[in-house]
């Protein structure tokens, strides 16, 4: 394969194949455990990861989104005021974040914060034969390690995305009230007027997709670590870079798809 395809093409293809295989294998291993009369995994495993990935990410996501919403309102507001159309700012921030920037920024932040941690953890466990030992005991490392982690980012990214939207709107509202004379209530009504269900649904669907991508890439990179401590470092860097790149690529494809369907 390496002789036929340049490395730049071969590597992503191998990674996508590996990720699909990982997803299928994780589901099969989990179902198999259920058929043997057990619960898929202890709830505490999932809640532990959900707490870390979700609740733990709220301050970061909220803070960054707040300042981004603030900046967006500020920059667009001064331009639009020249034409006396600063009333468009609330709709702009609302739509911009709910279908685009909210999921995307959340995805990028979670890839850096949680994806890196997942890869480093699973990578260290792989390098020290802990993952193999779990397999040898019949515990099923995919079910025990991957399933709760991947599920946690998958389910919590949409929630974090909502946090991001709300924080951005708060930032936007603050600027509009201070600089452009739009009261908080008027801001809210303008947002509601402009926001349509399709934007919100698109944002939520994107968030699930990004969560799946981050969960699979980070676990895959962790489980395929080779070469001890330095291997873990390389894999972690590569996991964050790949996850962010794939999230942005998926976002673009998703937007193109949306445009082709609706406009």
């Amino acid at each position, binding site marked *: 394969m390496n002789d036929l395809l340049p490395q730049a093409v071969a590597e992503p293809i191998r990674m996508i194949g590996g990720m699909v295989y990982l997803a299928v294998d994780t589901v*099969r*291993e989990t179902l*198999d455990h259920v*058929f*043997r*009369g*057990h619960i898929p995994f*202890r709830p505490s495993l999932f809640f532990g990861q959900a707490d870390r990935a979700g609740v733990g990410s709220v301050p970061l996501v909220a803070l960054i989104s707040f300042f981004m919403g603030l900046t967006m309102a500020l920059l667009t507001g001064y331009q639009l005021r020249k034409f006396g159309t600063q009333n468009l700012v609330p709709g702009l921030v609302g739509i911009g974040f709910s279908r685009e920037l909210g999921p995307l920024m959340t995805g990028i932040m979670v890839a850096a914060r949680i994806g890196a941690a997942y890869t480093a953890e699973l990578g*260290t*466990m792989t390098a*020290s*034969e*802990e993952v*193999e*030992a*779990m*397999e*040898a*005991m*019949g*515990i*099923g490392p995919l079910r*025990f390690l991957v399933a709760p982690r991947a599920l946690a980012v998958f389910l919590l990214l949409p929630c974090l995305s909502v946090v991001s939207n709300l924080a951005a709107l708060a930032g936007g509202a603050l600027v509009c009230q201070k600089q452009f004379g739009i009261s908080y209530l008027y801001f809210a009504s303008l947002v509601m007027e402009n926001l349509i269900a399709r934007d919100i649904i698109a944002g939520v669907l994107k968030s699930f997709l990004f969560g799946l991508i981050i969960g699979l890439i980070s676990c895959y990179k962790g489980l395929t670590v080779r070469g001890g401590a330095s291997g873990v470092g390389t894999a972690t860097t590569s996991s964050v870079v790949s996850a962010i790149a794939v999230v942005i690529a998926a976002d673009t494809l998703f937007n193109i798809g949306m445009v082709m369907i609706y406009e």
Partner: protein
Amino acid sequence: MNERDHPAVRQEPWAGPPIVELRGVHLEFEGKPILRHLNLRVERKQRMVIMGQSGAGKSTLLRLILGILQPSAGSILFQGRNLNHASRREVNESRIKMGMVYQSSALISSLTVRDNLALPLEELTHKRRAEIDRIVEEKLALVGMEETGPLLPNELSGGMRKRVAIARALVLEPELLLFDEPTTGLDPVLSSVIDELIISLTDKAHTTSIIVTHELSSAFHIATRIAMLFQGRIIEEDRPERFRASHNPVVEQFIEGRTEGPIH
């Protein structure tokens, strides 16, 4: 085909099928053959010691028996059941009957010693908390590590970790124990402790063991059978006293530790 259905095929009808049998197992890594059509039978209650140079493929052999690696040809039977054609569920059911002690101990570093031992019981059985705690204490006591329960693996010495790993391998009462170089890197006294532990486990609990080791003295002490792995094949497999008297040049060189000979 299950051997148990064909009594005529059995070589030792009183003993049942061998607990592990490798038939013509061939394995390559990246085009390089590691095991070449290897055959090996391990009967019940044996302590089979496998010797061979570093890199001969001893750890690989154990991984094949555990079903972690798949051979490119040949078959691996555990209790007469072919692991290559088994479903994931059957493989996992077989693994529960095996206990593996890794060379690196491979304890879960984020869990305390007690939780390491409890993990297989919690995940794979329906036992109650109190019973799990009782089994954990019992197995820790068996290896003399009852004090270490609340500690994390990295708070233990290498020898203590090894003993905890043995205790962990025992919690599900396996029928087959696999040891990968259990005494390598340990001091002589601790090595003897581990050796005696391996002997008493197979004697008392009627388990079978496969032990990979380089250490000649402990090999001859614990083994009921010794096999020599060389260039991907088992070139000699016999009782210890006959193994020691073997005229196979590879075995002679290995036992005497000479530099000149077929091993280089």
